[in-house]
């Protein structure tokens, strides 16, 4: 079972801050980490490899320092790393990113599965997986929470729906996107990390020429979308979690509804509830 895992280096925060003047992400002072969902993706790949054998190739597009996520993945047990790095790749939107990743994967001789994270904590689009599958013209299963069985021909997985789960089978090769929290990713092994730092480590870097793309088709130039303005949305309404026993929570909710401004309907509901609660004593 040969598996390609897509991994992205991201800033260690979900609270992305933007430069007010340029609209760019402020990355200074932020530590870079492996995108959390990608850790779950790799963990599944490692479990499959432990059971069925094969190799795991990590692929990342990013600046030279993104090699750190490949090294970390090798510390966790991945076999090979491939860094797609070229000034021409900079400023890519999700289309250009998927195209670049797709072209690189086409160059990898053999793969049965591509596994990626569902979503990156910085870009946050969850588009890369589906777009890469589309580019390679292979089936995709998104929002995967569990991989049940893998055989030479097919994979059966569990995927999350809004109101439950579904089991889906797909022929191979296929692409899966993994939900964060789907499994418990292992910590890297020190020996593996050190081996990844060595000169002869199985890590390669490919540029635009290596994957046979024109510079106009990748990066900013190859992006279909153009950012006009980026800004931090203002949150006017914020959720609140009520805690306690059911009875306590309902009582708090009634109080809240009673206080809500200008919502006479809410007040009416609250009054009715109070009445019902009063008549039934503890019978909420």
């Amino acid at each position, binding site marked *: 079972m040969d598996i390609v895992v897509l991994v992205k280096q991201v800033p260690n925060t979900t609270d992305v801050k933007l430069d007010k003047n340029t609209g760019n992400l402020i990355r200074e002072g932020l530590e870079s980490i492996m995108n959390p969902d990608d850790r779950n993706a790799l963990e599944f790949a490692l479990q499959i490899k432990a059971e069925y054998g094969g190799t795991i190739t990590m692929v990342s597009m990013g600046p030279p320092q993104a090699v750190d996520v490949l090294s970390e993945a090798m510390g966790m047990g991945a076999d090979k790393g491939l860094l797609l790095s070229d000034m021409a790749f900079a400023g890519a939107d999700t289309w250009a990113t998927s195209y670049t990743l797709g072209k690189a994967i086409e160059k990898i001789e053999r793969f049965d599965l591509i596994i990626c994270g569902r979503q990156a904590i910085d870009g946050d689009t969850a588009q890369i997986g589906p777009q890469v599958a589309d580019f390679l013209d292979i089936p995709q299963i998104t929002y995967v929470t569990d991989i049940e069985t893998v055989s030479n021909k097919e994979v059966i997985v569990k995927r999350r729906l809004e109101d439950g789960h579904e089991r889906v089978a797909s022929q191979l090769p296929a692409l899966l996107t993994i939900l964060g929290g789907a499994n418990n990713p292992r*910590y890297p092994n020190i020996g593996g990390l050190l081996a990844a730092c060595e000169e002869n480590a199985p890590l390669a870097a490919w540029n635009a020429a290596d994957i046979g793309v024109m510079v106009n088709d990748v990066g900013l130039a190859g992006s279909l979308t153009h950012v006009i303005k980026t800004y931090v949305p203002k949150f006017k309404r914020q959720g609140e979690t009520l805690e306690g026993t059911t009875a306590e929570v309902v009582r708090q909710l009634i109080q809240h509804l009673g206080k809500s401004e200008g919502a006479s309907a809410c007040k009416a509901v609250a009054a009715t509830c109070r009445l019902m609660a009063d008549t039934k004593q503890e019978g909420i």
Partner: protein
Amino acid sequence: MYRSDAEQLIRKSIARFVDAEIIPNAQEYDNSKEYPKEILKKIADMGVFGIRYPKDRGGCGGNSTLFCIVCEELARGLMGLGATVAMQCLMGTNCLFIYGNEDMHEHYFLPAMKGEKFGCFCMTEPEAGSDMGAVSTRAEKTNDGWTINGMKTWVTSGPIADFYTVMCQTNPAKKIRGLEFFFIPRDTAGVSVSKPFDTLGTVTSKISEVSFTNVRIPDAFCLTRDGQGTGYLFSVLAEIRCMTAALAVGLQRAAMDDAIRYARERQAWGKPIGNYQLIQAKVANMAVNLEASKLMTYNALKMVDRKIECKNEASMAKYFATEAACSAADSCTRIYGAYGYSMEYPAQRHFRDTRFLLNGGGTHEILQTNIAKWVGL
């Protein structure tokens, strides 16, 4: 092709582990006073115990600097854990690594790398601490091996260990030159281990007495010979001191992190106490001492890794970083006000744990005496 920087990569990996698995539970571990078996299993699975040993002998192929980076990060989480891990990575296994035979390597050293067996180091005796020459545990040659009699104390990991590296006197007439190290598995007849000590700090690290009564071991278990014992000890002393310094750096960071967090939160006269200059001065001093401690420690470690003589630099680093840790923990408890005196907050733990750093690798009185001698007094 691009490659990651090994020191940064290891530090980041261990730091992530410490932040996720240790810091949130540190208070609980400390309160329970229990030996943290599960977390040590995770540390073992990460390959930490083999970090300073070569790959072809079952290690990870790292060096002393990398080992001390791990010690520093672990101590930032929980000093007791740092103490246990440091013992297993260095003093508990090193003599066996250098002088042990194939059989000992297979049955003890390799399992120790995986955390399946634990080792420890026995020098101190009830009547011999700083004054090593007073060690009186006796090793007597017999026809087919050695007989050991004596008592060791303050043995870190003593209660949980599977094997001991024991300093014994082979020939009292030779005094310090007669001291040699012996390998003694715990299950040898005549070995007995006391109950764990009740200690002020690092309460998850278990310490005990270990006594040897007519313990018979084969000749191969005599690790050092012909006066090699003290030579061996001096050869690892610089690294032991750097390791203690790195633990002290970790403690300083923990105390400083906690102090800053608290100084930002706690209000007095309508402002966070961190807005007051006298609090700022304490934090600034912690930061300066920390920076100096790091520089001294990792400078000495570079020398250890390059096999450059550095007993002076290592002693200074251990002395300075530990005193700075004592001062940082002291400041931390002051910044916490009354809560620095409460067992529910971490300040008291840092304060107690500093005492662990004072003795190992030489007391500060001994280090000061040596430093003064080295600079010409």
